[in-house]
């Protein structure tokens, strides 16, 4: 494939989360031949799928830090990209609300920090104004801080769009492929998988929760990863009327607090908890975690308690020690490690990719192909405020499958689920269908549509229903 030897790819990226996919997209556009490897069967199936779906401003990052720079830059890049790709974004703004003296005393310093991060529009808001803006807040709400630039975004479509674009310009996506070993050779690196060896001239570690282990394979101990579990509760769409903005907690020495946020799907999100764990796979919710969230939720928005819960889930964030973004290049090994990309990673991903490309340029890496300037792919409209196929007479007229409801709660048509199974980065399991279409993510959780969705996905993907639902033999 490449002149001068058996190097198959310019770059191998380990990790198909939002950061890995953003890096793959960026380098592929720069002319690199790229392979992305991930143990999961779908892109964005680890840390990236269970975040709080906020397009951050970086107002509360450490001023001058790499994270601060990349979040600010990434936000601007992603806002433009999402608009071009048709990814749902709602410019809700956020309101930090203080609930006691200690929190209230912290507010001025948060405004100063925001200013240092270039967020000049972050201002103090008096208690009366807080209540006027969010009348459903609990009675103990005090003054707050307004952060107009914090928006909500559809996080799943972001990773998918990056992967779709990368694949469209030749990136090879190897899902279900764990990396079991790494060897440094003269011409580049050998990435061992259970089935074969992938050769690449450069390696980028974007393995999230597994990033320290990949680093270790090449002898580096720059950081360790501790899985930090965040449990979240999604409330019914009928709760959406209770707030207009993201309601953020004021972090104190004792607690980071939980947020209540609208989602682009029209729901309300409450969470996350923050629990440091040993087990890097423990995405279970707990009775204590949910009880604590509900108690916080009722304090923040008392009326939330009367609304139905739609879903509960837990995500694992890749907290690193030392903290902060850990992006290192090891030119001698042709290796770039991207660790410590915590919850701001969705926002910063495009800037992280740009930064990684800069490090590679600095190391005089060259690519086998020419740069390409493709437009972003157009993603299916999943936002509640977008025109979805079932509300689009033109699409229904062109294909009645877009007017045939499959998932009633989320108003997902058969056409959309069919499309997801045949996309260039296709859904291969039910989780993939959920993230690409919202099917089965609604209030009934499959009471009405579960059987039909499974039957359709089985037919469209050629996967047996037994496999899709993991029925034991």
């Amino acid at each position, binding site marked *: 494939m490449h002149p001068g030897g058996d190097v198959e790819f310019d770059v191998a990226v380990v990790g198909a989360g939002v950061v890995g996919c953003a890096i793959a997209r960026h380098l592929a556009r720069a002319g690199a031949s790229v392979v992305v490897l991930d143990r999961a069967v779908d892109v964005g199936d680890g840390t990236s799928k269970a975040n709080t779906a906020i397009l951050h401003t970086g107002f509360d990052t450490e001023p001058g830090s790499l994270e601060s720079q990349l979040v600010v830059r990434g936000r601007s890049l992603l806002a433009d990209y999402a608009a071009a790709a048709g990814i749902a974004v709602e410019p809700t703004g956020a309101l930090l609300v203080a609930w006691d003296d200690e929190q209230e005393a912290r507010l001025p310093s948060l405004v100063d920090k925001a200013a240092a991060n270039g967020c000049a529009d972050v201002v103090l808001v008096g208690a009366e104004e807080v209540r006027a803006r969010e009348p459903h807040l609990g009675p103990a709400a005090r003054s707050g801080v307004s952060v107009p630039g914090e928006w909500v975004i559809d996080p799943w479509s972001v990773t998918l769009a990056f992967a779709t674009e990368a694949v469209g310009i030749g990136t090879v996506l190897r899902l279900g492929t764990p990396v079991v070993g790494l060897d440094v050779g003269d011409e580049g690196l050998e990435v061992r998988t259970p089935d074969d060896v992938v050769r690449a001239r450069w390696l980028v570690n974007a393995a999230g929760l597994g990033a320290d282990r990949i680093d270790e394979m090449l002898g580096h101990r720059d950081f360790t990863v501790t899985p930090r579990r965040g449990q979240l*509760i999604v409330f019914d*769409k*009928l709760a959406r009327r209770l707030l207009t903005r993201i309601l953020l907690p004021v972090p104190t020495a004792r607690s980071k607090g939980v947020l209540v946020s609208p989602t682009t799907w029209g729901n309300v999100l409450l969470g996350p908890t923050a629990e440091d764990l040993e087990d890097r*796979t423990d*995405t*279970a*919710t*707990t*009775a204590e*975690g*949910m009880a604590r969230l*509900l108690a916080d939720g009722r304090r923040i928005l008392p009326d939330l308690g*009367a609304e*139905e*819960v*739609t*879903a*509960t*889930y*837990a995500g694992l964030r890749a907290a690193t020690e030392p903290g902060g973004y850990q992006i290192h290049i090891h030119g001698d090994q042709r290796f770039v490690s991207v660790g410590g990309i915590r919850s701001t990673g969705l926002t910063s991903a495009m800037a992280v990719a740009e930064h990684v490309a800069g490090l590679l340029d600095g190391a005089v890496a060259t690519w086998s192909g020419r740069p390409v300037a493709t437009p972003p792919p157009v993603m299916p409209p999943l936002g509640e405020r977008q025109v979805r196929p*079932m*509300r689009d*007479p033109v699409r*229904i*007229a062109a294909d*009645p*499958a877009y*007017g*045939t*409801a499959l998932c*009633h709660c989320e*108003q997902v048509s058969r056409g959309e689920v069919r499309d997801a199974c045949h996309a260039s980065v296709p859904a291969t399991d*039910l989780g993939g269908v959920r993230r690409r279409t919202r099917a089965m993510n609604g*209030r*009934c*959780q*499959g*009471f*009405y549509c*579960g*059987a*039909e969705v*499974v*039957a359709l996905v089985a037919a469209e993907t050629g996967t047996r*229903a*037994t496999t899709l*639902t*993991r*029925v*034991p033999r």
Partner: protein
Amino acid sequence: MSDPAVLVVGAGPAGLSAAHELAVRGVTGVLVVDREASAGGIPRHCDHTGFGVQDLHRAMTGPAYARRLADRAAGAGVRIRLSTTVAEVGADGSATLVGPDGIDVVRPRAVLLATGARERPRSARLVPGDRPAGVFTTGQLQQWVLLAGLPVGRRAVVVGAEHVAYSAVLTLRHAGVRTVAMVTSLPRHQTVPAFAWATRLGLRVPLRTSSRVASLDGHGRLEAVDVEDLVTGVVDRIPADTVVFTGEWVPDHELARRGGVVTDPATLGPRTDGWGRTSRPGILAAGNLVHPGETAGLAALGGRAAGRRLAETFQRATVRPAVGSLLTVAPPLVSVVPALVDPDDLPDRLLLRTAAFTDRRLVVARQSGREIGRHRLRHSVPNRSLGVPGAVVGAMVSDGGPVELTLI
């Protein structure tokens, strides 16, 4: 399409019965819309007998009953439009219909919501654990097995011990799945004794009373259900690849709430009078949307009553909102339907629900502290309807304040 006179949303027992009643009483232009591809609602996938006894006076299977109701309505001149979603009922009374043929906005003179109820799923019950496959509600399981013919698993735990839980055991058996335990937080089962005995002795399914599901184990697929004894606090790990959450019916009230209809805090369904009228003129509600978890027969009778009264006044008057005095309940009673009663227009029956087993059987109705009626119940079992004649509140005074129903 031309505007229907009455738009009925939902082709289940309540909607089809209301539409049939309207048509036979001379209302032309009745349109029933259902989002599913076939009419009949939940009975479509309940493959056991006993349907039709309350309303049609003969017993048949769920699918047969579903067909019968649809045929009757169609035979009376009702139009039934399937695979069509009512996306919205607007403040102006218009309704947006979406289907494979496109999007239509219609302006009926009245909308009758009969959107039914669903079982509260695992997530809404806040059951801790990961999100493995193998977690069902009864409705999902029945469609899985009876409509789609999909594989289920081997060993199941059924959560709940009311009628529908026993129905889930039968569906599991049909699918070759052994039910290894039933779990109820109450001290006894809540079905008829014959079902409970047959299941426990005939199918050898143990019932764990005063117990709850503490968590689910398993990552990709369910591996076990942790069941906690609420009396001793002991948690048992029951290996299972399937769990079915039954009962805990929640009305599908989204259209009603988005349409500005006042809901009842106890049932979560629209607050109605005995004839399905709601707080909004021109919008009615009937069936399990109003009284979640009742039998198909009671839903059908409720639809029929709403259809009858709507037909009687349809030609000469606009459809007025519900009026009347509010009925309230005291614990252990949790709800009463209808919640609004006009003493000059009493409903045939009131449906009560209790949260706990109790020996108290006497329902006493009081208004402003004055007793106005009483009725002895045949049973007072949770998760089952407790029917009381409407006459029990017949002596109430209009504008005399709310009427409270108590068990003594």
